[in-house]
């Protein structure tokens, strides 16, 4: 194993349509992650306006732009890598994007969500590229929330095949308003796919989701309740608490896997771990 990375999931309270208030809370938690010695913090999806909030249609900003600048400055100020989800305005279209910023405040990677839900179609355009980047922490790839649905795991698997040590996944996992804290909210919906990819491909997936009540758009009547997940090849590293009222900083250590396979070697390794490629195309 290579040198472990102390990382944080910023399980942020996101208020729909309130970027300044969301950013203020995000910065406090990022500062906390820095104080705790974290070299990387992952924040949730579209933390500017909230996921599918109607105001994002007209108020989204370009990347780079003032909103991404806010996080670039924060990354430099606190000396920490940040992965953050923002609504991106690009050539008269909006994208559900995520960026990776290094500890000097430079944007290293930008990704736009591919596996959009149908309710997202009026809000975001499907992303058109996927890539990884070498960093001081290891090779990092980005995807977003429902990109990790079982039917679209090829996205995470491609990132792993490109050599990603870490897949950082800003998310806005939702549940019905009637789900209380006393119930396991997701019924393994997110654990199963993340554990599947992590185990087969020797990659660590870190998915920070939001908390808060959805107050606009097609998902009114639902809410975000946290439960962020960090998963290594060995299994779950840590989880965020289930809570719809308050943000939380979850810190942990994660290690990149050294001496990884390349190209067709990856398929061989996955086959040896019991994955039946033939069954998929039957």
């Amino acid at each position: 194993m290579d040198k472990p990375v102390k990382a944080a999931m910023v399980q942020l309270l996101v208020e729909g349509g309130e970027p300044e208030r969301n950013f203020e809370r995000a910065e406090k938690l990022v500062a906390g992650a820095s104080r705790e010695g974290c070299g990387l913090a992952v924040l949730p999806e579209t933390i500017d306006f909230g996921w599918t909030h109607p105001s994002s249609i007209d108020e989204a900003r370009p990347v780079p732009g003032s909103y991404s600048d806010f996080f670039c400055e924060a990354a430099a100020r606190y000396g920490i890598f940040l992965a953050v989800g923002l609504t991106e305005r690009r050539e008269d279209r909006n994208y559900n994007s995520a960026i990776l910023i290094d500890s000097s405040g430079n944007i290293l990677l930008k990704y736009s969500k591919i596996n959009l839900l149908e309710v997202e179609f009026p809000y975001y355009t499907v992303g058109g590229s996927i890539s990884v980047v070498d960093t001081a922490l290891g090779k990092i790839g980005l995807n977003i929330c429902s990109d990790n649905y079982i039917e679209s795991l090829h996205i995470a698997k491609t990132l792993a095949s490109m050599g990603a040590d870490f897949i950082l996944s800003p998310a806005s996992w939702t549940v019905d308003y009637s789900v209380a804290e006393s119930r396991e909210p997701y019924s393994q919906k997110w654990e199963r796919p993340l554990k599947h990819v992590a185990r087969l491909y020797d990659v660590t997936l870190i998915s920070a989701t939001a908390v808060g009540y959805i107050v606009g758009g097609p998902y009114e009547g639902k809410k975000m309740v946290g439960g962020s997940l960090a998963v290594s090849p060995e299994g779950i590293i840590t989880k965020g608490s289930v809570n719809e009222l308050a943000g939380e900083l979850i810190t942990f250590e994660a290690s990149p896997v050294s001496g990884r396979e390349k190209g067709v070697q990856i398929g061989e390794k996955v086959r040896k771990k019991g994955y039946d490629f033939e069954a998929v195309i039957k």
Partner: protein
Amino acid sequence: MSVIVNGVELDIEHRRCVRCIQDSSVPGINFDAEGVCNFCRMHERLLEIYPSGKKGQDILESFFEKIRSTPGKSGYDCVVGVSGGRDSTYLLWKCVKEWGLRPLAVHFNDGFDNPVGGENMSRAAEALGVELRTITSDWREAKDLKITFLKASVPDLNLGTDIGIASSLYEAAFQEGIKYILIGQSFRTEGIKPLSWSFFDGDYLRNVQKKLGMVPLRPWKPGDPGFNLGKKELTYYTVLKKIRTLTPLYYVDYVRKDAEEILKNELGWVYPGAHYFDDLYHSLIHYVHRVKFNIDLNMNSDSALVRSGQLSREKALERASGAYHIEDERIIDLCIKRLGISRNEFESYLNLPPRTFRDYPTGYGYIKLLRIPIWMASRANLLPKITYEKYFKHGK
């Protein structure tokens, strides 16, 4: 001389109580020969009904014995309603640290929670080792109710939330088989609002929503009441299920400043910025009350503090002379935006002629018929004792 009462200009003399700071703008206020208002006299009666000190402690202990002896399914013996504000957090602290109760903390989320309050609740629950259960409204209903009551043009702008809070406490008690609900109100610090400022009646809510709302309320189920808490539902919970609601802080010499110190030191509690500001919508309510109805809720609660010796009358008068700082223009904008309406639409509701609950079908006639049973129920703690005083002995 004229005074605006509930938004209507009345040809009456402006007077102010010589003891507290309430004035003729408060509906139903009157003054005795000494110049003391009926709200202050009511406070004196409440001090007799709800003694503090040793007598209050003895009464509380008799309640607590009953509470401890009737645990629910999961071992909790009471439901405590929490908001992240000072009063409810202090009540939760008292339950655990001083009274030896096993509370289930229940919060009702209607989409306008102040994030500071949310953090307070989470920290308090963790520090006290209490389960925090959040009962969330369906935003489509909650939002529409807020707009409906703006259209209704009445002061009860938060009736949906008030009913939702109460029904969520009954919901949790019903689900867990708990017989006691504790709430953190105190007449010593909050006072009592006139009926027309806050008419708590689930039938009123249902009737107004039917008339002016766009979203039908989901039907009542005992374990999922939603916004349904009319006389039938209330009878079900209080008479059939025998769930009682108590206000323990009424028996305590509750001093806000002292409570704050404890909460800050022991639970890392943070002041949300103002009384009632655990709910951001109070920023908008305060604004509408001031500009449309000439209502000052803060004058009401500051008067209670003056009566309790927790605030000087001079300081209270000084605070009453300007707009209360809870009226934050940015938060008012947030509320309007969150409701999904334009500023113009909001202003159009502001310009509607002011009304009160008396302009709508309510359960008030039924409540008046039940004067004696309500007196008996409030004295037997089936309902908060103050219920009778509020409906029959107080301002209009």
